[in-house]
């Protein structure tokens, strides 16, 4: 058994495994830049899977997997799901690590599943969507009880030119928060921070006033890594928009060009020179982020609130010492940086779902997956087989039985949670309760990205370089490698390297979307 799954793991890595149905598979392991081309050449013009009529409706899904074994293709959980949705389901599991390569290869092959997960709204997806490779779902969502309740901000985030091409897998929008040492705050007789100034005072005293009362100068305020997320979160408190904002003339401008951005940047520089953050953050790997906090060296982490769960799991002693705060008040009130709100979305290729009636069947299926019963199947499995309910909470059973356990592996990848997650959960810990509370409150003060659904050809082609110019300059400014002049130079380099064109294209697209009335779902302004 073990060897078999190992083998199938290896085969899967090589991308040449037989799927559960033994369907012919294609070459997909692509690493170099030239190999993909040939891989795509070889797989072109494969036979297309025609949607079958009759009952039950046969549906193929391609999605990402983190496990190797998913039980038998007709295992009881899948059977229950098929019965509930009146379909016959074939799931093509693709390892998450090379999922995007697989998407590109699949798109090129023409042999498409009826439902396909798209992880990122990248250039190749956008081009395919704009050329009509997928159904535009914008007009149809309203006909389905669950899908009609989709969150407008998230729909905007996944949209292309104001059109919605997928059903997103929802994640909390107000996920970003401040995780801090409550006991240190108490030791220093400080109140819970309410404003940016309070936040600064907390970091300062955590660094210089011996918050752990051990008589040693061995603590500092906030731990940051090479991942730039925390800076983005903090600058939002200063009034910096999420990605893009409107200037006085109503034109969209990138966050970096707003005056608030400079205020935030100066604040970060101050934190750095006063040693309130770790000195080598620019090279610190993000996977070591929690370590200084767990060891009691750093007192604050600004990131997703649920990071607190990880920390408490690693060091249970911290359970009653951790505080979580949604945001602190800045010049524009209480604001928090919205996340994208999704972890990939399911699209429906026109090639594999040629008719409107098939589309309706697929959409009805996806809608049903959001019912409480289906969500429970996907998240927990079957009651009495994978779990039992005790006081309304899930208790896993048969955890030693690999066969039963594997039946639900990765099925949660099919969970969309629209409008909400309705499945039963295990009994929450005090920390996870706090996390959920903060995220629910944060949802009300989320700052969305108004340009999330807009498209720029320049950005699609040069986005990484453009982002690097500004991101690198930001870090250099924080550590003092460049000054205000250097920042200005970076901005003008960015403008010249395509930034100006990028701004122009975003604004043109904004006007186009507005003119064509595609803003119905959009939370613009």
């Amino acid at each position, binding site marked *: 058994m073990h060897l078999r799954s190992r083998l199938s793991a290896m085969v899967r890595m090589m991308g040449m495994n037989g799927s559960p149905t033994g369907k012919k598979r294609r070459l997909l392991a692509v690493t170099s830049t030239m190999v993909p081309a040939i891989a795509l050449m070889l797989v072109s013009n494969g036979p297309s899977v025609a949607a079958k009529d009759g009952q039950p409706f046969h549906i193929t899904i391609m999605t990402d997997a983190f496990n190797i074994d998913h039980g038998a293709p007709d295992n009881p959980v899948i059977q229950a799901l098929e019965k509930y949705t009146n379909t016959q389901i074939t799931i093509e599991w693709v390892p998450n690590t090379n999922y995007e390569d697989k*998407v590109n290869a699949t798109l090129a092959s023409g042999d498409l599943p009826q439902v396909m997960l798209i992880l990122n709204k990248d250039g190749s997806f956008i*081009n*395919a969507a704009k050329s009509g*490779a997928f159904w535009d779902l914008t007009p149809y969502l309203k006909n389905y009880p669950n899908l009609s309740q989709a969150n407008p901000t998230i729909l905007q985030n996944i949209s292309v030119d104001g059109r919605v091409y997928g059903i997103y897998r929802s994640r909390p929008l107000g996920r970003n928060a401040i995780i801090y040492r409550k006991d240190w705050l108490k030791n220093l007789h400080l109140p819970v921070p309410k404003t940016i100034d309070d936040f600064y005072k907390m970091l300062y005293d955590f660094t210089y006033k011996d918050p752990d009362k051990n008589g040693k100068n061995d603590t500092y305020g906030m731990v940051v890594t*090479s991942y730039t997320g925390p800076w983005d979160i903090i600058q939002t408190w200063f009034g910096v928009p999420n990605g893009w904002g409107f200037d006085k003339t109503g034109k969209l401008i990138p966050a970096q060009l707003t005056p608030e951005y400079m205020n935030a940047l100066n604040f970060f520089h101050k934190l750095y020179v006063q040693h309130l953050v770790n000195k080598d953050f620019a090279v610190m790997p993000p996977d070591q982020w929690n370590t200084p906090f767990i060891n009691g060296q750093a007192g604050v982490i600004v990131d997703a609130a649920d990071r607190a769960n990880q920390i408490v799991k690693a060091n249970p002693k911290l359970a009653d010492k951790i505080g979580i705060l949604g945001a602190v008040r800045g010049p524009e009130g209480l604001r928090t940086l919205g996340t994208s709100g999704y972890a990939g979305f399911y699209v429906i290729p026109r090639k594999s779902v040629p008719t409107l009636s098939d589309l309706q069947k697929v959409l009805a299926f996806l809608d049903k997956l959001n019912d409480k019963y289906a969500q429970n199947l996907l998240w927990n499995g079957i009651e009495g087989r994978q779990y039992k309910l005790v006081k309304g909470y899930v208790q896993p059973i048969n955890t030693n039985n690999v066969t039963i356990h594997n039946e639900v592996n990765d099925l949660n990848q099919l969970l969309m949670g629209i409008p909400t997650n309705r499945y039963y959960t295990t009994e929450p810990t005090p920390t996870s309760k706090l996390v959920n509370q903060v995220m629910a409150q944060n949802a009300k003060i989320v700052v969305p990205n108004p340009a999330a659904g807009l498209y720029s050809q320049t950005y699609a082609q040069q986005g*990484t*370089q453009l982002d690097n110019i500004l991101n*690198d300059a930001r870090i250099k400014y924080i550590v003092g490698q460049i000054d205000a002049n250097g920042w200005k130079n970076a901005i003008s380099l960015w403008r*010249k390297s395509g930034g100006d064109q990028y701004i122009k294209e975003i604004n043109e697209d904004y006007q186009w979307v507005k003119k064509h009335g595609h803003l119905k779902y959009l939370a613009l302004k």
Partner: protein
Amino acid sequence: MSIPVTDSTMKAHAERQVKATSAWQRIRRDKWLYILLIPGSLYFLVFKYIPMWGVLIAFQNFEPWQGFFHSPWIGFTNFRLFFENPDFFRLLRNTLLLSLYNIVFFFPAPIVLALLLNEVRKAWFKRTVQTMVYLPHFVSMVIVAALTYVFLTTDTGFINQLLQHWFGRQVDFLTNPAWFRPIIVLQTIWKETGWGTILFLAALAGVDVELYEAAIVDGANRWQQLWHITLPAIRSTIVILLILRMGSVLDNGFEQVYLMTNALNRDVADVFDTYVYFVGITQGSFSYSTAVGLFKAVVGAFLIWTSNYVAKKFGQSGIF
């Protein structure tokens, strides 16, 4: 290269014709050898030569969902964009400088080590040292990068703790752009020097012991033996390796540079290999990055050919 027609080339030509007539006979005679050749040839055909057609997407605006046969052809546009890109000269400079550092500081290292090992007379000691110096080659680059971080970071790094203790100051090895190239070269020396000695040691093992004996009789000391016997014996190996190295002047090894790049040293760290990754893989500009890759390959082939030509001019054997 044009070769003047001389008597000897004419003769060689004639001989070749005689051989050609008997080629089929020779194939039949050595059929088992040819059959043994098939798997290897197939490997190169299937995995090297057929995929080579993929470079054609450098001349396309390749869209994965349209596939190779339906993507539009755009000629040399990608190449033009690349050469006009303000990043081009920065990338070229970084790539060449890193290669230069490697050739100057790393390339001689295995030669020196091989010569040192060659002078060791105790066999068990030599073998132990050899095994030890081979080991780093098998350590993944990811581990090497992690070790570098653990040693050099200013927050908790071992070396910076020592510097702080002894001199009261720290050095920002990882974030100061000036340190980027030295650290890359030092990593390479640490990791690959031992492995690089294999070829040289093999060449050294073939040196006739009588030469040394004769030299000793003539009164040559250790240095003279090294200079007049050992080094000439491995000269052709050095030249061949140098020629091959020239071919990869534009390759810096993606993994290592990528792992050591951060926001503060990117100006000196960006090389063609990482650029191809960022543009091609993270941005999905497959055609553009293929054009960059093709440019690299053409320059590499040209450099191999040139250095081979120069080596032959100087009386060395070369690789073809």
